[in-house]
């Protein structure tokens, strides 16, 4: 019984404290990015890379599982709150709006075609050329 409660608690918190996916990016110039730095990027708090490429956050559609995982990891909240967060900072002009795509394949394809784009993969393997270094 005790074990069940612990498992239930972990399962409930899984959405809130999801694991960070594998970051993928195109022509990012910051060097290795820590998880915190990645969080700041996916929360819209960074708008331009050191090489002056604009930061474009690419996410799967808002009703996808990947989007919920990103929300749980980055904002430690649900998908709607994460959307609202982005809407707020875009409304204030502090960040460019993220790009929403239907699948991780489309995410990979978009990143591949746009410099400064960054995303998180949870299911697909990360191509080497789009790998983002992490410490």
């Amino acid at each position, binding site marked *: 019984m005790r074990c069940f409660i612990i498992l239930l608690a972990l399962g409930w918190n899984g959405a809130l404290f999801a694991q960070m996916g594998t970051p993928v990016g195109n022509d990012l110039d910051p060097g290795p990015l820590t998880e915190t730095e990645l969080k700041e990027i996916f929360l819209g708090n960074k708008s331009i890379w050191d090489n002056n490429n604009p930061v474009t956050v690419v996410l799967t*559609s*808002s009703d996808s599982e990947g989007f919920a995982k990103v929300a749980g990891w980055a904002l430690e909240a649900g998908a*709607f709150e994460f*959307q*609202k967060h*982005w*809407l*707020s*900072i*875009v*409304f*204030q*002009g502090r*960040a*460019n*709006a*993220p*790009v*929403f795509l239907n699948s991780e394949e489309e995410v990979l394809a978009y990143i591949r075609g746009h410099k400064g784009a960054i995303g998180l993969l949870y299911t697909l393997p990360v191509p080497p050329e789009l790998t983002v270094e992490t410490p």
Partner: protein
Amino acid sequence: MKFLNSIIARIWGPFGLMAVSLLLLVGIYIPNQQKGTLREFQSAELKELVKSMAINISVAGKYDDWTRLTEIFADISERPSLEFAVLLLEFNGKETLVASNPPNVSMEAVNNARSNDLFVEAPIEGGIFQGKVVILGSEAFLSSETARLNFPLVVAMALVITAVILLYFFFLRGVALPLQAVRGAAERIREGDLSKPMDIDTNIRELKSMNMALDGLRNGLLEQRNTNLALTKGMENEIQRQTKDLRKTLDELQDSRNLFGNIIESALDAMVIADGQSRIVEWNRKAEQIFGWSREEALGQKLTKLIIPQIHRDNHDKGMSNYHATGQGPALNNLFETQALRRDGTTFDIELYITTVKIGKEEVFSSFIRDITAAKQMSQDLERQRELNSALLNGLPMLITLKDEDLRYTFVNDSALKELKQDRSDMIGKRENEVFDTDWVEDSMKRDRAVWNGETDSAEEKTLTRGGVSSHFLIGRYLISVGKENPTSYLLTYGFDISTLKAVQKELESALSTKNEFLATVSHEIRTPLHSIIVLSELLNQHDRIDERDEFSQNIRSSSRHLLNMVNDILDFSKASAQRLELAPADMDVTEFTDGLIRVDKDQRSSEVSFIKDIQGCEGVTVHADQTRLNQVLQNLLSNAFKFTEKGEVKLQIIGVRKNDTFSMKFAVSDTGIGISNENKKKVLNAFEQGNSGIARKFGGTGLGLGIVSKLLQLMDSELVLESQLNEGTTFRFEVSFPLIKQQASASPTAHTAPPTFQSIKMLYVEDMHPNQMVMKAMCKPWNVDLTIASSGQEAIERCKQESFDVVLLDIQMPEMDGIEAIKVLQTIDNFMDNTPVHAFTAHAESEDYERFLNLGFSGVLTKPLTPDQLREFLLTHLKHEHSDRH
């Protein structure tokens, strides 16, 4: 107005108006219009923007298409026309401010801006985001845009105004100022300053011409002035001379006016001067006093409103109209009396004189008014007094005339006119001998003259005979003076008609004669029985006349009774004359009464005169009547009948008739005596008078009997009727009615059946006179009454304190302590009055005396003289009383 007609105003007025209009148009109207238009444009733009933002947010939320959001929202922060933009999202039904641009816009600021017309909002619908986007336009942006747009207009306007100001100064210097100089020069000329030449500095041709013309005018005026100065000097001299004359005239006029004013003011009468419209133009001090209006208040007022009473106003107005039409006025120049109105509304009598005075073309009416209220009142008082005096003199029931020194009539009163059968106009101013043609005139005038000459003239009696009727007058004369300083003398003659007095005097003399005869008769009637009493009393003491004692005693008793009856008659008549005679009715047994009549008359009957009594219908009847007085009436009539009948009969007839509750008794006393002549029938009923004086001498008597009978019958509502024939006889009749009393069983008399014994009665007799004491002892002796005699009130009191009595007889009139004082003391002895009856024994026999004694506490009253029978009755009553008390 002066300024508006100036050249500057006329020229620069339109310019000024244009400048102001331009200023209002460019500075206020156009900017406002532009600002409004911009506001509308901006509002529409903002609505489109906010709508676009809302749609894109909806699309972003629904399709994950955020492509446009970055672009749109980035554009917001760059727009200067926005004050702020706010994103509001709904969570759990509540709107929350999610983001704003610029940051830190509060929800309160959003709510405050809702009323602004630049506040626009659009809903976010159809996606996951529910809420709204709100934008507020910037007022500063609008203002700056408006200013920017109007800047060229403002510059243009400034240039125009500058041009206008420059034109103004140019015109002012070139035209207006020279024109003002010309005007100033003209003003100097008008004011007479011709010293300075016209030196206007101008290049304008028209102004130069005007300057030259003015200078010519100045020169012309300068010459004219010099001419005028010379003329003026001459005129001034003439005016000074005329002014001096005028001043003198005015002073004289003022003096005259002051004199006139003083006369008016000091006038004893009110003076009121009015113009042709009846408006007051002069009002002196006396008018102020009379009417109560001050001069200031009165001047200018209409006469009708101020001093003419309402009832005279129409007449006044008609009079004025008539005067204006005809020049005639009945009230003018005539002194007449009328009424005027005071300030307090009261009217009063005035004497008025109105005259007209012509001043210039206008006529004024001068009124002289005198308040005659007091004079009129005095006149009325005098007239009233004169009428009163005249009425008084005319109303007096005596003849009054006044004659002057010439013995001419100046006043004759109504009584004199009536008595002398003359008219006043036929007598006033004439002498007696001019009015009357009688034999007494000469004597009367002699007497008048004698009084005028100071000879005293006593009143005279004069008999005037007119139409066979003689009247007696008492005529008197004396002088009277009227007035204090210059008295006027008149001869007052008065005359009283003393005919009535004469008649009364005659009657009084006749009455006095009758009285004297009466006194002589009474004296005779008193002396006669007294003589018998005195002589026979002395004879009783002569031992050789013992055998005649009974006869003497009988005679003494008869004389005494006669004397007593006579005294009673006199007293009764005296009371009847004073209306004090009263009846004392009580139950009366008619049978007993008629029986008693037989017994009483027995002593007076002559042996040759038979007495017949005819009694009918009187058996068993009891009435309520005064038996004593009825008996007195019959005794008098019977006594007379026996007295005047020498032989024949005297008949008494009584017929009783029951009528319901009353019992009527018809009495007739007839005799066959000397009778009464017709001449003496009236006299016999009068007091003191008998048929003739010879009768009194022959038959005796006071003559009061029938008088008393008549008075008593009057009290009984009856009347004595006399029927008589001389030498044949006389019958007196009368009828009386008495209330019937129901018959009761009468107590059987015991007093007469057996001689009573009074040994058980202990009586105290209080009497100061020894003879009376002896009489009482003698009367009581046969009955063995236990009699105690006290000679004074004081002794009686001492006796009563020492022993008890069954009854006390207390004389009233005693020296030292009288009976009244004595009973007051007896009343203070404990229980004495409760156990002992005290009777007053007095010669005061009036009914009011009875009442007075009973009120003082006496148990009863016994009247002197007291006969043995009366004493016996009293003792019997007392004995009965004692017995009943003891039982």
